[in-house]
């Protein structure tokens, strides 16, 4: 009997819905009138408000070329019925697959950027264009930008939903400048690099100063500029105690007055005395081609470290120098 009544009840449903569309207050009488063909054993069900049958999800009506920013115009949580992708997320049970998107809490928890597709961003840019000025026509290449504006400042602004617009992270200011665009001579450059230490990158020749010690962004910016100015001027000055720079402080190997030079000079002098060739002087000895070659090899060996190439070059030059075949 239950099976017989069920289709009748279902057939009555559309009528019930239209009925409800007209009258806002659905009286229990009307409600109870409809399921009258039902048996008395189902009384507990009448207290529950009638549930509409679930509509088919919106995804089924979506075409391929629909206007996506209208589906997600703002940041919204993940709606499985509105996103047509068969996304799965979650740790699978044994021999199972990750959970599907319907009713998936994991997909809800994570932030999604469905409101920021490239199409949406393009629309944003179009809208913002009215508020922008034009890029200066003269600065059409990277080199020109670097030449005229060598200092680059990076700042970050943070917006979040909350009672306050302040964010302590927003005070950080990063100043980047290439040392080649600064007017520094050799001594000044070495001194500057020693002064800044870790903040200089040798491969890209970029000095990066990151300031966050002041509470406001403007103050940090001023401080960064001040630091740059001070560094520049200080590195041009030469202090008294800089004369005591020892070999251990040197950044790279300098041949002049090095032990290597002395050794080679002594050796050559001894060779000359052995050959009874007494009228030589140091400059002459040091000026010969073999010694030049040797000097280059030693410098490259010390600066670049050992590898097969430098070592074999060094070997050849020593052989030539000592006239060994």
């Amino acid at each position, binding site marked *: 009997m239950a099976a017989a009544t069920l289709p009748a009840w279902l057939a009555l449903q559309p009528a019930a819905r239209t009925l409800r569309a007209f009258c806002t207050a659905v009286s229990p009488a009307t409600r109870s009138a409809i399921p009258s063909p039902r048996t008395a054993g189902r009384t507990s069900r009448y207290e529950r408000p009638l549930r509409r049958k679930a509509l088919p999800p919106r995804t089924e009506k979506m075409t391929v070329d629909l206007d996506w920013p209208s589906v997600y115009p703002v940041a919204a949580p993940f709606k499985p019925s509105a996103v047509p992708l068969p996304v799965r997320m979650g740790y699978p049970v044994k021999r199972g697959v990750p959970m599907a998107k319907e009713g998936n809490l994991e997909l809800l928890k994570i932030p999604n950027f469905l409101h920021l597709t490239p199409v949406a961003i393009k629309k944003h840019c179009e809208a913002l264009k009215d508020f922008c000025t034009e890029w200066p026509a003269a600065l059409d290449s990277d080199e020109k930008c670097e030449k005229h504006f060598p200092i680059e400042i990076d700042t970050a602004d943070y917006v979040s939903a909350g009672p306050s617009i302040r964010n302590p992270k927003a005070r950080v200011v990063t100043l980047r400048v290439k040392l080649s665009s600064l007017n520094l001579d050799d001594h000044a450059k070495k001194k500057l690099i020693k002064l800044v230490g870790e903040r200089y990158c040798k491969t890209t020749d970029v000095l990066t100063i990151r300031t966050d010690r002041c509470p406001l962004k403007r103050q940090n910016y001023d401080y960064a500029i001040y630091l740059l100015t001070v560094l520049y001027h200080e590195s041009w000055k030469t202090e008294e105690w800089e004369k005591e720079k020892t070999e251990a402080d040197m950044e790279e190997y300098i041949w002049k007055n*090095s032990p290597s030079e002395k050794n080679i000079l*002594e050796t050559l002098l001894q060779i000359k005395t052995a050959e009874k060739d007494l009228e030589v002087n140091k400059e002459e000895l040091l000026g010969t081609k073999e010694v030049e070659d040797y000097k280059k090899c030693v410098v490259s060996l010390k600066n670049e*470290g050992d590898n097969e190439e430098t*070592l074999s070059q060094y070997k050849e030059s020593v052989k030539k*120098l*000592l006239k060994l075949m």
Partner: protein
Amino acid sequence: MDPGRLLHTGSQAPQSLAAHLDNPAPDDSPRAVSRTSEKDPVKTFSEACLMVRKPALELLHYLKNTNFAHPAVRYVLYGEKGTGKTLSLCHVIHFCAKQDWLILHVPDAHLWVKSCRGLLPSTYNKQRLDQPAEASIWLKNFKTTNERFLSQIKVQEKYVWNKRESTEKGSPLGEVVEQGITRVKNATDAVGVVLRELKGQSSLGGFRLLVAVDGVNALWGKTTLKREDKSLVAPEELALVHNLRKMVKNDWHGGTIVLTLSQTGSLFKPRKAYLPQELLGKEGFDALDPFIPILVSNYSPKEFESCIQYYLENSWLQHEKAHTEEGKKELLFLSNANPGQLERLCAHL
């Protein structure tokens, strides 16, 4: 063929090298091989053979063309662990011994900078430290090696050892060596005297001097020796090291200096280090500059073949598959043609 001279006994490096080499003339076909390990195939094979390899040949070529009026040239053998530097050094020593040079061989300089007992303040110079045990061992070896020269060379100065003993000017060098061996307290000073005399006299041309030091990077590294007050000893405070450093300087002529770098046994150096600058450090490099670096590398295919052949001939390899092509390829792959590694592998077979 005469067996060569007995060069050294009782050190971990080459044991008695009664070499079966033919004339050490250039002979690219490598001969048999010898190993310097605790297994001591010398006793097993009852002979010690060296493989003639390129680095040694190169060195010998230079040696033959040296001009003894020029200051001594320094050759540094370097290479990865187990490639054969020590044995190339031995080959050179053997060649020079055959040619009647005076050999000054330090089998392992690392032994002088670690685990020494009985450091004494030096009798000659108060700031330095003596090592009587090592010095006396070295003197004994020196005596066995160069018996012939000990009576020939005369000291040029008077050396006073203590109130009762002194060596007069003009007495043979053998006396100094004896003094060092008998009176162990003066052994280090005896070594210093020997080195100084040899350096001075080799320039006169009476003999040719070969200075061969294995593990020369020990002279400029750190030591693990401590004084009584637990302060670390720097290498230059050891009298032996100080004298040896003077010896490897090239301010004398009439001979050559052949050196090897060694990571095994070196202190505070990473295992993979084998390049000259890494092992010698700045000080060592500056002291040895200019030198000729000679790379000793792993076996070439031909050398590998001949090594395997030698093992097979002497029935060192007992595994059935050892003489098959497959077996050889496997050994080649496992050892990567590294002589030391190959020897250790074959020891198991």
